[in-house]
């Protein structure tokens, strides 16, 4: 069942004299529970596509339907709420709130969702346990390593029980060991929670773990490989 449908998506930047066609007629579908990587060289349009998918940027043309909701037809306030309820984000630089502890960072979105204390506590502790940070819940980000911070970020992204998680270069700042740990955790959570993960990455280790690899160049999809069915739907 498709939870994301991208139809003939275009993004043109024309702020400078030269128009840049960052995303050029991309159509893709994602099913529930996918573990997909979008790869491509720098400037290929991966991040632009991910931003539009997350409702952070507007397409010049085309539509993105998430569970039949046209993302870019939503009003600004509706879009913010939609993101809060349906999309989890993992950023390259972790982007945790430095004044909050690991536990508070994870709880934060549930506060925004007005979840009750019991529900927040249970979900937070279970996620921190899942990402291997049991016992570090009261540490602030500055007291955690990069890998640990990114694991908190993954727990935070999943806290709101989103339909899918967008991870933009999540391993770019991590060493090999931390990358391996993080990928294993995300893979495990993907299986446990059945939440779709979509990565934008350069990292071959992420590509190796992904069950679907979409390659983009010059704003176009040049390959879309599903490893489990070994098919190429280019």
């Amino acid at each position: 069942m498709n939870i994301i449908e991208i139809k003939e998506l275009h993004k043109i930047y024309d702020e400078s004299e030269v128009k840049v066609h960052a995303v050029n007629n991309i159509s893709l579908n994602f099913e529930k529970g996918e573990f997909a990587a979008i790869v491509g060289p720098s400037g290929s349009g991966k991040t632009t596509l991910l931003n539009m998918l997350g409702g952070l940027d507007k397409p010049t043309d085309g539509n993105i339907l998430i569970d039949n909701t046209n993302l870019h037809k939503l009003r600004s306030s509706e879009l913010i709420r939609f993101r809060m309820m349906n999309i989890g984000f993992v950023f390259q630089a972790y982007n945790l709130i430095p004044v909050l502890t690991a536990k508070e960072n994870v709880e934060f979105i549930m506060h925004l969702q007005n979840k009750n204390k019991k529900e927040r506590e249970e979900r937070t502790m279970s996620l921190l346990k899942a990402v291997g940070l049991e016992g570090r819940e009261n540490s602030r980000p500055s007291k955690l390593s990069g890998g640990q911070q990114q694991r908190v970020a993954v727990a935070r992204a999943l806290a709101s029980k989103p339909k899918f998680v967008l991870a933009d270069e999540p391993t770019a700042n991590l060493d090999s060991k931390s990358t391996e740990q993080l990928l294993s955790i995300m893979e495990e959570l993907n299986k446990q929670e059945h939440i779709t993960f979509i990565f934008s990455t350069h990292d071959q280790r992420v590509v190796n773990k992904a069950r679907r690899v979409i390659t983009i160049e010059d704003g176009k999809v040049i390959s879309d490989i599903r490893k489990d069915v070994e098919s190429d739907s280019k």
Partner: protein
Amino acid sequence: MIQSIAWRNIWRSPLRSGIIIAAISVGMAAGMFSATFTKGWMNQRLEAGIETEASHIRIQAPLFDENYDLKEYIPDTESLITSLSSIDHVNGVSPHLVIQSMIASAETGTGVKIVGIDATAEKSVTNLYSKLGEGKYLEGIKRNPIVIGRNLAKKLKVKLRSKVVITVQDADGNITGGAFRVSGIFDITNGMYEEGNVFVRKEDLARLVNMKSSTTHEILVHLDDTELIDEMAIQLKSQYPELKVQSWKESMPELGYINEIGNLYTYIFVIIILLALGFGIVNTMMMVILERIKEIGMLMAVGMSKLRVFSMLMLETVMLTLTGGVLGILIGLWATYLTMENGIDLSMYSEGLENFGYSPMVYPVLEMESIIVIILLVIATGIIASIYPARKALKYNPADAIRTD
């Protein structure tokens, strides 16, 4: 949680927050102390004006104060005084015979208002008798005693028991004069009053101007509760419509405005301080936001509404301002506490101050209303100072903000 984040955010840069909090504290301490100092100063002037000069309520013949005509006296004074004395809460009634005249010593002369009083009755409406620096209150001299102010004594170059001559126009329009001897010299904080008013026995003055000793131009009324003055003035106005009844606010309007002027001065002073601090706060918050663009972008990306982001930044600014403000107010209150007992001596400026009726010793007075108004002004400054930086923060696109280095 937003409150908790806002509070913790303040302490992300303790040095920067500490500096702005210290600036606000110093400004607010100055504002608070200025408020209590001014209040004390104004209260002293007010109290001196009412208790020494004006008393609570003044009753006159309707046209008397237009030209101080001797013939504009209150009819049937005796029964009026009896009636006034029987009213609840009236604890003092004193009739005056008032004449504008010339007073002269061997050295010089000047114009004064001569007030003929009954010393015993007068003690029940003003406390001038307790302000004598020398001599006694119309006592100690058998014939024609007079009480004058220190400034007038200096001007006439007279001292206790010196002779002065009063020249007046009597009831028949003839110029007449009488010799009086100084029985007392009063010292109050109002130099102009000291120079322009003298007190003699009512019967001595009546004899001089050839009128009955019961003739009365005005009656001062004193109440046992100052809260009742306005109410009592209204009651007496309706009870004696043929007379001019005025509360002290009406008979000495300049005193009536003292409190308002004092408050106005304080609030203008505090607003100027807060305005200057406001720019510092805006600058600090702009720096804070520039440093946190990425974080603000993340908050908006993960679903924090613009209103919540705005509220968080506003709360942070208000908390920062309020921390400095409350600290400053406490310092101001402490300074007030240290000085309210022994006062602040401004005697090096006493001559100028006393000319305007102000005491050179100032005892700061604490008033809850001022503290509340200043706290509200601090909160308002925090809110206003947060609007521009917070609006600026909301203009960032989350996707761009997250990518900011």
